[in-house]
């Protein structure tokens, strides 16, 4: 079917637009299909499940808001909320401060800095079960290096993972070890700060601290914002380390929401109930993200606004 050269231009344009649209469909549909089938679809299904008492044996039957009311009365649910809240409130700011500090160290223009950058990022790449295993041994009360090093300073370390008061602390320390990703994003932000700005401040007699306080921090606030959002989402979904290192124990002292959810889904096979927990988690994540977004005009400083003023 040859296209006549005398065909009206509009017809040709229409044909072209159609082939463009067909291309768009072909190029985009695999990703869309994948995300719809395994992420967004399941999200809706789990909402439906959360109003049912489904497990692999029962048929799907709606039971109203029963799972949610039961959840609110469950002591362990509140415990898991508490643990996840404490963990997020401590580990997210701590991680931000430490990774910003490291990024500033890595932003120095000195020889060999590239090697250091890679080394600092290494813990992020190898995270997972292997490293969790390693930490479990490091925190061993008797044979672990932490207590051994403390012993050299004549401090008697706690039995970290078996102590209700210290198990969560141990997990927070573990999380700080893996701040490489956050650090790298800060580093990228730092490198975007024009050098002349710092030089000018120095000439004006600003000391290091006021340079940091009045130039670096404000110019970095959009990066901090990005890291804060990612940090909150990550902290609330925290699972693998807790599951491997403490398994939620001792006596539920490290029962994170995700661990609590796992127990109900795959130990007790209460799929409906687990779906309700997952939706509560999702709503909390959304709400906090929204709050951070809403708060951003108060503390996030954008380049474009500066130009307007």
């Amino acid at each position, binding site marked *: 079917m040859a296209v006549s050269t005398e065909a009206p231009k509009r017809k040709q344009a229409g044909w072209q*637009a159609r082939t*463009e649209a067909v*291309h*768009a*469909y072909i*190029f*985009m549909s*695999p*990703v*869309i299909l994948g*995300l*719809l089938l*395994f*992420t*967004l679809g*399941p*999200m809706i299904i*789990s909402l439906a*499940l959360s109003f049912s008492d489904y497990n*692999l044996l029962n048929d799907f039957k709606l039971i109203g808001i029963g799972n949610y009311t039961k959840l609110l009365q469950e002591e362990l649910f509140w415990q898991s909320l508490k643990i996840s809240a404490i963990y997020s409130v401590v580990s997210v700011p701590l991680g931000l401060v430490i990774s910003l500090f490291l990024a500033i*160290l890595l932003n*120095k223009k*000195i020889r060999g800095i*590239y090697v250091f*950058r*890679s*080394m*600092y*990022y*290494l*813990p992020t*790449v*190898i995270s997972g*079960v*292997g*490293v969790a*295993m*390693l*930490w479990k*041994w490091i925190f061993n009360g008797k044979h*672990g*290096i932490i207590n*051994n090093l403390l*012993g050299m300073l004549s401090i008697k370390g706690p039995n970290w993972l078996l102590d209700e008061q210290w198990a969560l602390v141990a997990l927070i320390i573990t999380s700080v*070890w893996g701040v490489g990703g956050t650090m*790298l994003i800060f580093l*990228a932000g730092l*490198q975007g700060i024009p050098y002349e700005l710092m030089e000018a401040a120095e000439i004006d007699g600003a000391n290091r601290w006021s340079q940091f306080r009045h130039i670096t921090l404000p110019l970095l606030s959009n990066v901090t914002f990005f890291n804060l959002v990612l940090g909150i989402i990550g902290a609330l*979904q925290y699972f693998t380390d807790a599951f*491997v290192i403490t398994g939620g124990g001792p006596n539920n002292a490290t029962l994170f929401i*995700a661990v609590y*959810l796992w127990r109900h*889904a795959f130990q007790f096979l209460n*799929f409906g109930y*687990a*779906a309700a927990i*997952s939706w509560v*988690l*999702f709503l909390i994540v959304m709400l906090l*993200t929204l709050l951070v977004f809403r708060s951003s005009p108060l503390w996030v400083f954008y380049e474009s606004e500066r130009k307007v003023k």
Partner: protein
Amino acid sequence: MHSKSTSAFSLASVLAYLGLAIVVAIIGLPLLWMVLASFKESAEIYQIPVTWIPQRPTLMNYPDAWNAVPFATYFRNSIFTTACAAGSKVLLAISCAYALVYVKAPKRLKDVTFLVILTALMVPAQVTIVPNYITMSHLDWVNTYQGIILPNAATAFGTFMLRQYYMGLPHEVIEAAEMDGATHMQRLWLVVVPMAQPAIVTVGIFAVVSEWNDFLWPMIVTNSNDMRTLPIGLFGLFQTEGMQNWGIIMAGTVFVVLPVIVLFIRTQKWIVDGIAAGAVRG
């Protein structure tokens, strides 16, 4: 790069090196301890005070770990599922991001696609895991490769990142290729992909690392040793050997971590620069 501070050994640069070195120690000591422990005999591991350098170094933990659980099978499964899922993630993201930026499709179609990607970015894995498991069990795909791979075959994060990167590429080059009559396939593979290489490599390495370390989903969707991947196998080794034989566990951990470290060392320049570039643009 060649400012005065590089050559002069000022007090500031000495302090900087000192700070950098302390952090390297904090990062490196646990890893060093792990490797050293993997060469210790069982008795020495439980010895007090704790030793650093193995007194009677042994290689036995490695064959012992290798034989305690079917590590060869785990390796095969991990390599296969990681290659498939990461490969598919990268290929699909490359083409989807291309369509979002360079194909003149109806705006509505693009907007909906972009919305799907952004929403998917926010959904926690925990929300999708139960329905995905139910789907897999209805399809009889529990304990199969497709069961492990398919839910991870597309990436919202990678697609988003590539889209941001593509938008920063010089449009004139792609338009010139269009004038020369290049098809979309040619424009994508001969023009856009070579230019976007740093971002594509970064997305690829992220995908490989996240598949290799993935724990929750493969643990749920597999139920026999012949389908398990390395992280699940290592966790199983820990459950069977437990506290009795930590040298074996550390040797097993080296099995899991070493390939990632090697990959990282070979590609680290790409990753560190790629993320930095992506973050600055994004």
